[in-house]
């Protein structure tokens, strides 16, 4: 089957299996018990072949060729290729200028870091029920998908069934976090089986299958070089990335962006010149990298720049808050064009940083840390001042399979003033039903409890690209606001007609149009809705509804300042998070309670990645962590207490000024934990420690430094 990234992926392996747990056979049975017994009767004999587990070995001259099927292709998605196991090179920025700046700078810091392979691990695994009606030729698929409309397009292209005869229903989903964006081989198997057999076919994964074969994230081997003058002013940034894409190039990404939006890695800082080079390679691991609770490759970008800022601060002996402050893009510089081509829309970083430092008594914490260090105790303070890029995406820059990344909303106001609204996004637990209803209620002055929001059924909802990359509010929310404003514009015309005045004589107030200067002369939205179906101005169509397909002029750039304090037990290596203070600026805050929930969730998933999640492989390519015995899912027991705060800097181009928030806390908190853990050892010359910061790994560092000796 074709992948979103331009490669071809095996549905069921033939001749060669490329990674452990790859699907090789399917059994279809009347019930799961027969299916399980039948599966046991399938005997598979494997002949071991040489494997590549370490991506640094993929392009060795003597490396085994992993994909004979594409050996002759000079492109598998983004070309050109320079080795049989090479997928793409993607470079952006000014290489010569960056090298020149690096060569002449007062100081250059360089660090290798690995953002390990992790799995989004939603609580509900992937699954579907495909049902093909042989008489009508209709295919209905119930599926746990974050992008049902794209799935419909893909299924139509692959099966030849017209899109109009395919209905994809994505019902309530038990979490997605990027994992449910793609189309997996087992979906294809279930759909094909249903078309062949003419019967409904259900497929559902168990936990091990889910963790082993479905979309994971990250696996970026990064080298950063940051140049600065002696006062800590940044002169240049150079980044080299080796991306482990697994056995097939099936990353979920906008077509033209093989490394996603990684080039936002200049962060919140004025970086005069920069260059990024990303090479993607094949290895014998599961394919299908996605953005785990982040916009495409933004978690990696933010991790890189925030780590480099810390390392620079250590090198120069300038405090990590101070060095960030010296390099911030200032509020009056927005919109700010970065050296790698992004236009950051708005922000006020210094205000946010000051608010956090004051709230936690930063000077006091540093004093306490100095005392603790004198006593031989390990205390670390982590700080990040990150900028995200979300709201995928302006269609001029981004598409999926050629479909622009707009978002849609359709609003119908009934005669009695209740509303049915449908969107192309799909909630995976973010409470779109509340946020969208609130936007409509605010724009139209109709009670939110009479507004029904429906998503996820391609037969009823307008075409949309789905929910990921924090795009629901920035793009879907914008479509909803614009559609609501179209409805209100029509309502105004009807109100003017009913009140026998000109539109210019009307003022809008909460839920009604009032005639200027004439108290009592007014029509409520409910009255207008009724009139829309029986008494409209001449020449106007009846009804009160609108659709909007919103194509954003730019991305949105939410940001945050996070500070964490950790205490480390030098005999066990256990990292105890004493304090985590998260200030987010997501622009206009539509529903504070939902924002708070999203931030708590994102911070907790960030904590999971920072402190335990990884998918380790042994040298034979065995995945050593595909059960919840090994894969870390934090519960209330482990999760620290979160303190949250905010500033509000509205996005200038979003109809509501909102920027999206669900992913910032995940993206921002991970480097903040690393920053704190490394900070505990910074006085001993440690500049970086790779994720995850498990007790075992931290203890190893303690032991290496000889800090665990008892008197």
């Amino acid at each position, binding site marked *: 089957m074709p992948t979103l990234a331009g490669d071809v992926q095996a549905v069921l392996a033939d001749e060669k299996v490329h990674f452990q747990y790859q699907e090789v056979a399917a059994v279809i049975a009347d019930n799961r018990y027969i299916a399980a017994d039948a599966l046991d009767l399938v005997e598979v004999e494997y002949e*071991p072949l040489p494997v590549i587990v370490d991506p640094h070995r993929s392009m060795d001259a003597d490396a085994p060729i992993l994909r004979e099927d594409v050996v002759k292709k000079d492109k598998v998605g983004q070309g050109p290729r320079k080795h049989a196991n090479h997928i793409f090179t993607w470079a952006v920025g000014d290489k010569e200028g960056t090298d020149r700046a690096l060569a002449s700078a007062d100081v250059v810091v360089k660090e290798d870091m690995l953002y390990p392979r992790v799995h989004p691990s939603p609580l509900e695994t992937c699954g579907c029920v495909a049902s093909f009606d042989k008489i009508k030729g209709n295919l209905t698929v119930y599926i746990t998908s974050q992008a049902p409309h794209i799935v419909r397009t893909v299924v139509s292209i692959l099966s030849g069934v017209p899109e109009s005869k395919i209905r994809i229903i994505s019902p309530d989903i038990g979490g997605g976090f990027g994992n449910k964006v793609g189309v997996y081989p087992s979906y294809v198997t279930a759909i094909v089986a249903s078309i062949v057999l003419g019967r409904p076919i259900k497929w559902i994964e168990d936990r091990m299958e889910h963790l082993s074969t479905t979309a994971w994230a990250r696996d970026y081997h990064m080298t950063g070089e940051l140049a600065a003058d002696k006062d800590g002013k940044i002169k240049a940034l150079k980044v080299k990335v080796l991306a482990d894409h697994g056995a097939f190039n099936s990353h979920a990404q906008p077509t033209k962006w093989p490394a996603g939006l990684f080039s936002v890695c200049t962060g919140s800082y004025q970086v005069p010149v920069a260059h990024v080079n990303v090479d993607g390679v094949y290895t014998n691991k599961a394919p299908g990298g996605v953005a785990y609770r982040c916009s495409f490759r933004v978690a990696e970008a933010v991790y890189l720049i925030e780590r480099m800022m810390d390392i620079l601060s250590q090198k120069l002996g300038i405090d990590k808050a101070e060095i960030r402050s010296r390099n911030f893009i200032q509020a009056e510089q927005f919109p700010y064009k970065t050296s790698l081509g992004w236009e950051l829309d708005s922000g006020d970083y210094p205000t946010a940083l000051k608010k956090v430092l004051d709230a936690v008594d930063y000077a006091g914490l540093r004093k306490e840390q100095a005392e603790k260090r004198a006593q031989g105790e390990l205390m670390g303070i982590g700080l990040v001042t990150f900028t995200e890029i979300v709201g995928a995406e302006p269609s001029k820059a981004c598409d999926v399979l050629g479909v622009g990344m707009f978002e849609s909303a359709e609003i119908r106001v009934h005669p009695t003033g209740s509303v049915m609204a449908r969107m192309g996004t799909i909630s995976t637990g973010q409470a779109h039903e509340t946020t969208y209803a609130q936007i409509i209620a605010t724009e139209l002055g109709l009670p939110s409890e009479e507004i029904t929001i429906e998503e996820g059924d391609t037969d009823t909802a307008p075409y949309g690209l789905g929910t990921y990359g924090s795009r629901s509010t920035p793009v879907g929310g914008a479509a909803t606001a614009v559609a609501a404003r179209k409805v209100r514009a029509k309502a105004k015309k009807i109100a003017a007609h009913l009140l026998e005045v000109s539109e210019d004589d009307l003022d809008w107030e909460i839920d009604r149009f009032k005639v200027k200067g004439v108290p009592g002369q007014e029509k409520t939205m409910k009255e207008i809705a009724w009139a829309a179906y029986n008494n409209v101005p001449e020449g106007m169509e009846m009804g009160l509804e609108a659709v909007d397909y919103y194509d954003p002029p730019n991305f949105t750039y939410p940001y945050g300042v996070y500070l964490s304090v950790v205490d480390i037990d030098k005999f066990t290596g256990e990292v105890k998070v004493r304090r985590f203070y998260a200030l987010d600026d997501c622009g206009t805050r539509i529903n504070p309670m939902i924002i708070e929930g999203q931030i708590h969730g994102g911070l907790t998933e960030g904590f999971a990645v920072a402190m335990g999640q990884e998918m380790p492989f042994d*040298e034979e390519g*065995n995945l050593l962590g595909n059960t919840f015995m090994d894969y870390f899912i934090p519960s209330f027991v482990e999760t620290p207490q979160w303190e949250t705060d905010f500033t509000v800097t509205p996005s200038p181009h979003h109809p509501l000024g909102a920027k999206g928030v669900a992913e910032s806390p995940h993206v921002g908190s991970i480097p903040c934990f690393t920053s704190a853990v490394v900070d505990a050892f910074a006085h001993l010359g440690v500049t970086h420690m790779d994720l995850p910061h498990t007790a075992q790994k931290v203890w190893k560092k303690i032991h290496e430094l000889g800090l665990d000796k008892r008197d």
Partner: protein
Amino acid sequence: MKVKVEKTFPFEFPATTAWKLLSDLPLVATCMPGAEIIEKVYDHHYTGKVKVKVGPATMAFKGKIIVKNIDDLKQELQMIGKGQDLKGSSSAEMEMTAWLVPKDGEGCELKGKSTITVNGKLASLGGRMMTQVSDQILAQFGKNFVHQITALGEGKAAESAREKLAEQAKTLNGISFAGSLAAGFIKNLISPKKKD
């Protein structure tokens, strides 16, 4: 994943007696907990099966055992065993060299060196426990080896050794085994060995 284990078992028997047992593969196989020789295909080639329980995974492996070298002079046995579990989801291979070193006076030492490679589900599920499990399997092998030699003789000791062998569970799923595994694990925690 690969695990390397080296073991030494001291005996009070002369090396010649121990060698008699060590060089008789079908008999020595009975000392391996959970293992069984099914048939001799031809000289030095056997088929056999092993049942192992590692963590939550119980697996039955079927495969071949090849004696690569029997050196009467050096009293050394080299063998290789490899198999797949019946569902094809895991495979295991063990290369082992065992030899006898006579001690001053009475007795000898059985020394063994083995590399165990496991792939598939067994590695995924049992990876963390493989070193301890391999260690325990071989420790039990040493104990059984002593019983087996004793049982070859006459008298009361031989009688009780034969009884112990009869009680020996055919799978690695005894409470005593789990107990010794836990004990080994705790011992490791208390006195951590240097690992690479």
